[in-house]
């Protein structure tokens, strides 16, 4: 059955092993598809390269978070101890910087970690409980033992029948359309 185009998100093909997936991905790229996505139940080595993914932003965000935490942390302690209400604490200097190091360190770590996690989620556009691929009946295996490629409608080269056939050609079984509603 042919669904109306607008109700289609893309075509998905299922593969049994990571090797087959990687091989398929390479073929898909060679075929000139760009708007497609691969799914695997665990991070598959070499998949990123196969898909030609560049370095991502997470490390940078983390660095920024860490620096903010660290500098902010020390600055705050200095302000408290030496500027806003300087008090003589047991004869120690107002700016007892050695004593401020532990907190500075902890805040650096805290800042960096928060940045890393939330940066990652944000870049991955999570949370996103609803996604068209979930409409695919067998997609539940994507989180167990099956590997999927989904070529999206948005891709310039996308043609429902063509693309489906193309995927079957990559020895994917269960090629199916992804409805989008």
């Amino acid at each position, binding site marked *: 059955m042919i669904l109306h185009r607008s109700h289609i998100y893309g075509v998905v093909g299922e593969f049994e092993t990571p090797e087959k997936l990687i091989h398929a991905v390479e073929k898909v790229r060679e075929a000139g598809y760009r708007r497609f996505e691969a799914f695997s139940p665990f991070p598959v080595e070499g998949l990123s390269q196969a898909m030609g993914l560049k370095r991502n932003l997470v490390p940078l965000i983390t660095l920024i978070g860490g620096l903010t935490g660290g500098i902010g942390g020390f600055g705050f302690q200095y302000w408290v101890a030496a500027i806003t209400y300087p*008090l*003589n*604490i*047991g*004869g*120690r*200097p107002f700016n007892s910087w050695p004593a401020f190091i532990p907190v500075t360190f902890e805040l650096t770590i805290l800042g960096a970690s928060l940045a890393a996690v939330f940066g990652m989620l944000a870049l991955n556009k999570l949370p996103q409980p609803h996604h068209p691929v979930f409409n695919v009946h067998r997609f539940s295996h994507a989180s167990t033992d099956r590997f999927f490629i989904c070529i999206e409608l948005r891709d310039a080269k996308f043609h429902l029948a063509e693309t489906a056939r193309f995927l079957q050609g990559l020895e994917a079984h269960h090629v199916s359309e992804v409805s989008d509603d």
Partner: protein
Amino acid sequence: MNGMREHEQHEHLDGQHERNDPAGDAKLHEGPMDLAAVRAKLQSKTGKLYWRTLEELAGDPQFEELLHREFPRQAPSEWDDSVDRRDFLKLMAASLAFAGLSGCGRTPEQYVVPYVKQPDGMTLGKPQFYATAMPFGADAIGLLVESHEGRPTKIEGNPDHPSSLGATNVFAQASVLNLYDPDRAQTVTKFGEIQTWAAFLDSAQAIAAETRAANGAGFRILTGIVTSPTLAAQMQSFLTLYPQAKWHQWEPALGDGAREGAKLAFGSYVNTVYRPEKAEVILSLDSDFLGSGPGHIPYAREFSRRRKLDQYTEVDRRDAEMNRLYVIEPTPSVTGATADHRLPLRALEVGLFARALAAKLGLGGSVTVPAGSEDWLDAVAKDLQKHKGASLVVTGEHQPAEVHALAHAINASLGNVGTSLYYTEPVEAHPVNHLEALRQLCADIDAGKVETLLILGVNPVYTAPHDFDFASKIKLDPSTKQKKVKNTICVSSHFDETAEVCDWHVGESHYLETWGDARAFDGTVTVIQPLIAPLYHTHSARAVLGAFTEKPGATDYDVLRERLKAAYPSADFEKFWRKTLNDGVISNSASAPINVTLKFNPASLPAAKTSSLDELEFLFRPDPCVYDGRFANNGWLQELPKPITKLTWDNAALISPKTAENLKLAHNVAWGGGEHGKVYSNVIDVALANSKVTAAAWIVPGQADGVVVLPLGYGRKRAGYTGTNKGFNAYAVRSSSALWAATASSTMIKKTGEDYPLACTQYHFNMEGRQILATGTLEEYRKNPGFAHEPGGNPPKELSLYTEYSYPGYAWGMTIDLNSCNGCNACVVACQSENNIAVVGKDQVMRGREMHWIRIDRYYEKSVKSATNDPSSYDASLDNPPTFFQPVPCQQCENAPCEQVCPVGATVHSAEGLNDMVYNRCVGTRYCSNNCPYKVRRFNFLRFQDWETPQLKLLRNPEVTVRSRGVMEKCTYCVQRINTARIEAEKDNRKIRDGEIVTACEAACPTQAIVFGNANDPNSRVAKLKAQQRNYTLLGELNARPRTTYLAAVRNPNPELLTASRSPAKESA
């Protein structure tokens, strides 16, 4: 949580107290059963039946509970108070706090309650000081009492008064708590039923009428020592009115020895006044003249003057001089601890020594020297003779007459009379032999000669020798349903053991509530003026006596003024009156020295009675904290560690280590508390004079072997919530035949096999070879005055990585002279009183949680090493260890270790170098206490403060925050006094003068061992003392840089005895 802040409330309780309404009467009328109910229940019964009803009631749990509500605790206990309103509020507060609103939690509206008519001369918020005096035995201590809006809150000494010289003792300091004691008798009662004063006057007059008919026959009065001229005059006129009436006196803790000794020596009663300052060499024959007895405060002051090395400079220190004190005593006293040479002898042997000394000095008599004291005798005799006219022999109150007589003879022969001591007419209005007087009274009662017995301010049922069985004399005989004495009237501050068996009881007013007068140890007359109208319906002894005269209505005030008018005729009486009230003393009223001729020859003494050394000697002595029992209900004194034993809340049978070993007695340091808190000690049965008490045995190093001391004043049955059933009652085994010392075979002591937990605040007595308490001899001082600095001493400042803070303004500092301190504890109670310090109760002390901001550490000299630091494992070095005291308040370190670790900045440094403690910022991590090397911080582990009892609220010092549960507290150098002085100085643009700020401890100290001031001012006393080479820092090597420093203790041993005294074991051998 502003509950912690009593300030508001106090600030505006104005005037409430001028009027005589005991706040919190309401408290009594709540709950399932109240006094009214009890009275109702009692109303129905009368006379004999009444007592049985009370019995029934006693069993009634509701009644018990009522008693507890009526006598609120001064010491909270851990388990028994349940969740109540405040606890609930705390939880609410907690939730508020978690909501982030705390610190600005919206508190309910408060009200300002001004006076209706403000008393003249009063400025709200400014304390006023009034001169008065506390009569105490044969002495009266002149006081200046601080009053906040009409509430007396703090006792200070009166510098113009000879018995005080500005200092006080523990009893004077604590007496203000007695005023607010919630357990005080609050009314007049007959058979325990509340009566009106008018009703009492009526029946008094009725009795008076009968008596007058009988010409006074059968009317007897029993008092303690009376020094009040006014009361004495009243008594005289009474006795002239009723010629047949008799006046008996009974002072349980002050011996007849001195009185009878004088009679023996001079043929008449005379009063002896010492001038220790004038003496180079002092020998104390079992006398604690620095720590107790009439005049002990000025004596301590004068004595310490001769031991301060302040006046010596680097140049002339080589010929520094000090007086020398020899003490011979059976049990360690503060005087003994201060001595340069101390010899433990049995009480009897002290007498022998006196005889031997007299003989040695060529006064004749026997020369049987007690074993082991030969070299002593020679040395002392030589020393005394070397200082003829500048020596002094002092005899203890509890020594028999002959020893006193001998001392008089010796002093006379040494030509000390007129220099280091003088004689005056007796200070007592009516000196008699108290024991005989009481014996007489009992005999007369048995003979049925006594119709009416008026007991004024004494508690014979508790204190009389047990063989007199005084209770049975006046109590209703259950079998015959008869009373030997028709009318018994008792006047006392509490409804005590005696009141219980008397018909009438009149609550006695506190000395801060009454007009009166009293004489000091040297005869000086002091006017006692009240600071507050009686809190309850109480009356003075004089007023009660007056009730039986033809002028029953006369007020104390009028009577006093009448007498003064008569006694001190002056052109302008009002002027004289005002001056007297202002000064607190009647100028030059001290009794003049009299010439007495010695009518006594030591040779004529009968042979001394001796006791075999395998017999035990049981001594009865007043307790250093509750005295003869009159202070039993005073929480401050109960929790005050006794100077030598450091025991609280209990008395114990004191024995020497060796005797303990022989009797197989031991201590067992419990896990909880242990060295600081709970010590289990063996319980013994003491059977004496066919009676028996069960006591806990406590081992006291330095006690004479074979001596068992049974401290009086405990085991009260009817003292009040705090004092009842604490310790054991030594009076129960005290017989008239052996009032002070009884000899009996050691089989009179039986181990019961049980252990009893005692609360001891310092069990560990040795310094572990650390430079804690620096001591040396005068010789050492002359050679090297800086001996205190080796080893240790402050590390040089350059070594610090940090730049020093500068204290350009004031730099508050304190010095404590260990050479002067005799461990008398006055500072501890003064501090407790000034700073609203809570009483925590025995249980908490046993857990090591007492709250004293200043503690007095008692150490035995460095040379003393005991394997286990446990006196119950015998060690010869414990027979007579040199003893030293070290008061330890917060050291106010400049590099305070406590401050650095506080997570919230609740303890920080002020610009004047104070180690501030901010209670309301404290969250109570206790980290500061852990990091305090001196362990002077105190933590409110539970809600120790009593928030319920209204009377105790009146007691509090509004200038000091009342701490609640969960916060740390510590000595503040009395910052409230510093601030007050600073504000006054700032107002007239001047610097604070040296001595303008006096901390509570400094003010109370009889020996001026504590000096506080501005260390930046080179001319201040404290700066000068810190410049001394004796000055050293406690644990200086930690570089905490304390502002409190110590002046090393210097002893002046007799070179001839030096070897002996250095190895104490020898002496007692």
